[in-house]
């Protein structure tokens, strides 16, 4: 395992110039090829996007009002849906994309774009809208058979019950020229990707859903640039000695582009973390964390627990809360099911054991008789030691 002490012969300036031009040509070629595929109509449309603000929207289903420049939808309709509409009148062939500006859609929400056209005005058309980080993504409609004639009204339907207020800033019909497509891709690449539970397994590199992932684009440019350099160098009958230099330089340049994007995201993450935790002591940090309410309850529960480790069973609907409750309870001798929402059989419990319940259905406690039962099992005698909203600590008697 040894490498040459001598670095490769320095590439002549001419080789470097050819590589720079090759990279530029590859960048343009890949970009133009992508636009040829992705731009639905003319590349430089003469029309500007059509935009409607929150004050022009009608809340057909759900409850809410316009606050500032946002339509704040505070609740779903009785059927669990939210419908927001706007009267429109534009040629669909000139505006092949529609983008709703909204935030705080529920996780995994089902959202659809609805519209009517003047060709079949009685027919209501719809298409699914992808939701990412609580935001609806732009919808490209150029392939839709119903996106014809003039659009006579468009609407946003959210079929999932809201878990927090939904804020809608407006909607834009886009002509989707080259500049807009490029802007959309850039916004996907530069979208803030905060740490999630999946970050130790997967780094997306910007928005969760991307029409053109940046690593693939950069890889294509690097490969084409090196191939161009090779072909060009052969064509002008120059030495290919600098091929390693050209390949490594193009590769490093591509890597740096990706790394610069990553560092930009990391710096935003650091700022985000700092805004949340800076200046807080350890206890305050835990109270400010995702499971702050749980930590607060465990803090109260620990005050009534014995100093020596006690056996504690933890139950919660969500496995995240089961695990986190156990984590905050150590070094007590905690037991929980890390995978399923399963509680122990009553006969496993012994007097002196504890049971901590956090946001779990199917658990009942009769204060008068001091009887605790769960999942239809026979009740056991237990004393309520601490409680809070949706949280209780029992000592088995």
């Amino acid at each position, binding site marked *: *395992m040894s490498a040459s002490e001598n670095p490769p012969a320095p590439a002549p300036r001419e080789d470097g110039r050819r590589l720079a031009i090759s990279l530029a040509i590859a960048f343009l070629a890949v970009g133009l090829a992508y636009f040829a595929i992705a731009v639905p109509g003319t590349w430089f449309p003469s029309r500007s996007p059509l935009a409607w603000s929150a004050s022009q929207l009608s809340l057909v289903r759900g409850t809410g009002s316009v606050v500032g420049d946002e339509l704040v939808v505070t609740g779903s309709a009785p059927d669990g849906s939210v419908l927001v509409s706007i009267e429109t009148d534009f040629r669909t062939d000139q505006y092949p994309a529609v983008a709703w500006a909204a935030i705080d859609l529920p996780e995994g929400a089902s959202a659809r774009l609805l519209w009517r056209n003047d060709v079949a005005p009685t027919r209501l058309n719809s298409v699914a809208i992808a939701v990412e980080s609580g935001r609806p993504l732009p919808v490209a409609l150029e392939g839709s058979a119903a996106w014809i004639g003039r659009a006579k009204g468009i609407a946003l339907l959210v079929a999932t019950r809201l878990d927090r207020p939904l804020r809608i800033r407006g909607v834009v019909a886009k002509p989707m020229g080259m500049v807009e497509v490029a802007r959309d891709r850039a916004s996907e690449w530069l979208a803030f990707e905060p740490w999630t539970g999946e970050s130790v397994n997967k780094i997306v590199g910007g928005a969760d859903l991307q029409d053109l992932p940046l690593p693939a684009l950069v890889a294509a440019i690097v490969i084409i640039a090196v191939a161009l350099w090779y072909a060009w160098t052969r064509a002008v009958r120059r030495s290919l000695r600098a091929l390693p230099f050209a390949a490594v330089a193009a590769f490093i340049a591509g890597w740096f582009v990706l790394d610069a994007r990553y560092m930009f995201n990391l710096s935003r993450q650091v700022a985000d973390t700092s805004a949340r935790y800076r200046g807080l002591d350890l206890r305050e940090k835990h109270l400010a964390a995702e499971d702050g309410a749980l930590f607060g309850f465990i803090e109260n529960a620990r005050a009534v627990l014995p100093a020596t480790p006690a056996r504690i069973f933890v139950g919660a609907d969500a496995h995240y809360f089961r695990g986190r409750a156990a984590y905050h309870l150590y070094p007590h001798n905690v037991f929980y099911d890390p995978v399923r929402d399963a509680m122990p059989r009553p006969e496993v419990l012994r007097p002196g054991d504890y049971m901590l319940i956090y946001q779990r259905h199917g658990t009942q406690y009769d204060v008068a008789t001091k009887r605790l039962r769960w999942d239809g099992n026979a009740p056991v005698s237990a004393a309520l030691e601490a409680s809070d909203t949706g949280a209780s600590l029992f000592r088995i008697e």
Partner: protein
Amino acid sequence: MGTAGLVVAVGLPWLLGIAWLRALSQGGDSLADPGRLAWMLGAGWFAGVLLLTLLMRALGTIGARLSLGTIASATLMTLAFVAWIAWRRGRRLKLAAVRSSLQQLRVTNLGTGKRVVWFALLGWLTLRAALLLAEISTRPLFPWDAWSRVASKARVYYELGRVMPFGDAERWIAGSGSVWFDAGPHDPVTIPLLQAWTAFALGRWDDVLLAVPWWFAGVALALALYGILRMAGLGALAALAATWLAVSLPLLDAHVALAGYAEIFLAAFFLLAAFSAVQFAITRSRASALVALLFACALPLVKSSGAFWLVALIPGTAAALQPRRATRIALTAAGLVAAALFAATRTRATIAGIPLHLDFAPAWPTLVENFLLLDNWHLLWLGVAAVAAMAWRVAITAPLLPLTLLTGAGIAYVFAIFAFPMLAAWRGDSSTMNRAALVVAPLACAWMALTLAAWSDRWSRRETPIPVRT
């Protein structure tokens, strides 16, 4: 006790590891040699962490109560003993050599343009390190397994001052309070012990500062890799660039920033074990065998699946030890693995409740997405594939074949995890393919850099300038 505790938590194992490596270094080794100091600092951190946790295990085994006093005393005594061995063997740390090594950072032998790139790269790496330190020293323990399988044990060890046994549900229920439980009761205790040690040194359970050793692991990995590449003959700028490639991998950075997982330690030990094995094949000394053995044994001690990584070291190490039979060893190893996997697809037998049967079920779109489309790896796997395609003839020449086999075996193992998803049951670990690939990624960066350098050298000699007609 915050900062002082952190200095003790990081400094004591680091000193122990450096002293141990120095004691086992070769007679002719000088810290002034290119990369030697970086190697010692980087590998020293990981050796120290392993030795410290082994001492904690030993204290636990003899029934001693774990505390800052007992652990620090045992570590200091071991440090004194190791330093004495180093002194006896004439391996003293010479300040002049250290100073000379540090002066190499000024790279006065490089031209102006390359020096600009060198300092720009150093600045970029420093900025990254600063951002990661700011992140991990602010956020409480965040990633799932870190609090459900690792820190859970560490908290119990720290608060009770003993390495308490952890068992599965049946054992816990039958144990009447003598056995503890968490989401990974059978996981090795090395990483929890490192966290417990940090808490002892801090004097409190602080699951923000517990993460700081992971930042040092990232820095030490960078130092070790740079040292390895310099010692293997790569120039300073090329070695630094390859180090940047390795430590800029987004998934690796995530494992530094979201501290608490074992993968970064596994990756470092795999790299160090691979390099030390090759070094041992060259020197054939007992001292270098001990170094290689420690790093190799660290793999299963850090994570259950480390045993498989240990097996992945065998073909490359055998090829390094038997260079004349290297090709035969490579072909035999590949044949054995292929035959074992094929046999597993044909059997329905089980051993100790673990089914031996494997289904070949590769999810190609997932592979493409994770390795080429998402930004887990920047362009790493494109680079590895390109180097393999362009420089394969160089990669299988005698000097590089062991390293090629070590890297190839690691990649083959990752591919096996991807192609045979049921392998997770064998490994006792359901880590994703990306987390498995993270283990081999730093070594893959080293292989890519060294193979490219050798190929570039050969290519430059082969390609003669074409006369220009005037």
